[in-house]
């Protein structure tokens, strides 16, 4: 049921996103919302894409969501599942689904966040089906 996973590339990290990547090392998935309009956005930015406010702040997300869509990439050395997951907070993010049977995934399936070390010892959030 569990397939081998590839070595994960490091994320590029910058001034806007370093808090996010520090948190993933503590197994926390942070989201950004705007203190002015109240909306959560993805991917996290210094400036709110909904209302242009600079008053954006981090908060810890539930780490739970549903598969919006996915595609199994089989014709590579280590096959993997590309997916968009819609978090309970309402935003959808690009990710991989791991710890799963490639042939038994479905849209709207419940998933939860897991973390994997990258080749440079950063931590990358991925998702697995809820048991």
């Amino acid at each position, binding site marked *: 049921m569990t397939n081998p996973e590839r070595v994960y590339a490091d994320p590029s990290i910058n001034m806007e996103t370093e808090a996010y990547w520090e948190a993933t090392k503590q197994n926390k998935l942070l989201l950004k919302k705007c203190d002015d309009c109240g909306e959560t956005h993805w991917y996290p930015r210094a400036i709110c894409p909904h209302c242009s406010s600079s008053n954006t702040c981090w908060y810890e997300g539930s780490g739970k969501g549903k598969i919006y869509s996915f*595609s199994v990439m089989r014709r590579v050395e280590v096959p993997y599942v590309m997916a968009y997951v819609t978090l309970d907070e*309402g935003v959808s993010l690009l990710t991989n689904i791991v710890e799963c049977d490639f042939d038994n995934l479905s849209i709207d399936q419940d998933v939860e966040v897991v973390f994997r070390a990258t080749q440079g010892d950063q931590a990358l959030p991925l998702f697995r089906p809820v048991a």
Partner: protein
Amino acid sequence: MSRSCKAYIAGVFEHPTRKAVDKTIAQLHAEVAIGALKDAGLTKDDVDGYFCDGATPGLGGMSMAEYMGLDITYTDSTETGGSSYLVHVGHAMTAIAAGKCKVALITLAGRPRSEGVKSLAAKDYGDDLPERGFEIPYAPVITNMYGMAAKRHMHEFGTTSEQLAWIKVAASHHAQYNENAVLRDVVTVDDVVNSPMISDPLHRLDCCVISDGGGALVVVSPEIAKTLGDRCVKLLGQGEGIKHLNSGRIDLTYTGAVKSGPVAFAEAGLTPADMDYVSIYDSFTITVLETLEDLGFCAKGEGGKFVADGNLISGTGKLPFNTDGGGLCNNHPGNRGGMTKVIEAVRQLRGEAHAKVQVPDCTLALAHGTGGSIAQRTGAATVIMGRNDA
């Protein structure tokens, strides 16, 4: 009737090569430029506007203007991936109407096949790309991103692999008559759905070809068109737009054509039902299906039924499309298929398509380009054209 228009396409040229191991990219740009200018009955000394994409060698159009010996007073290097050339057509229409130039040359060249590009891998734009850290570690490539769009469309609307396959079948029916096409064998729905799965639900035959080459367009003012004869094609309307992931509120079941289509139809004063022929960007079968819905040729979610049973095949279907074989079978030069979409529409309006696929009395046509990734950030541009007497 005779519709007024701000500009005409006077010349087009599609490079016959599909693998250019012995030519540089600059040389290919120059060869397609010479071809399109000759087709128009003009020379490089008539050109005062030059348009190219962001992948063209050099800063904007500067290096290529020098290489080709152009004397330029107007330039535009807007980059929206494979839709760039249909954006350039619109910008050339506007520039000509404003009196900024009279003869606009648009060129595309690329050689991914000779350079050994094995897949449509996403180009790496470097650390300044704001979304980079949240995408690249997950290994997105063009095929799995379009695969996700197809899977979501199937989930919401019941679209099937067999319906998508009909798009390739129609393209192959047309490509059999194109001696330059990469894939000339007529294929069946079974051939498509039984070809190897690349990134589900997309099979190998749901994907376009990888080819070298390029193409060029010459857009001219009405005054110059009058001197060049009735092979000039009227530019009646153009629209463009960008669609993205909308701060995380995503919807992969539609494309940027929902923005570009209405603008182009409104400018032309026409509707989808008026079109005799369409060139629809076909990086994958799903690209065509979503675009036809978004442009209003059928309702959202009805694309599967619309394309099935040969409805896109010239001579038998109700909406003949991509009669050169499209990107799915003929040519996708530089991994950018918008240029060849315009060129085949011009051939149709001139009555110069292959006799086996020529649409009788083709008077009004549409070409649509899609750039980037419809499951991430995508450009869209729609051009509506008319025969010289339209």
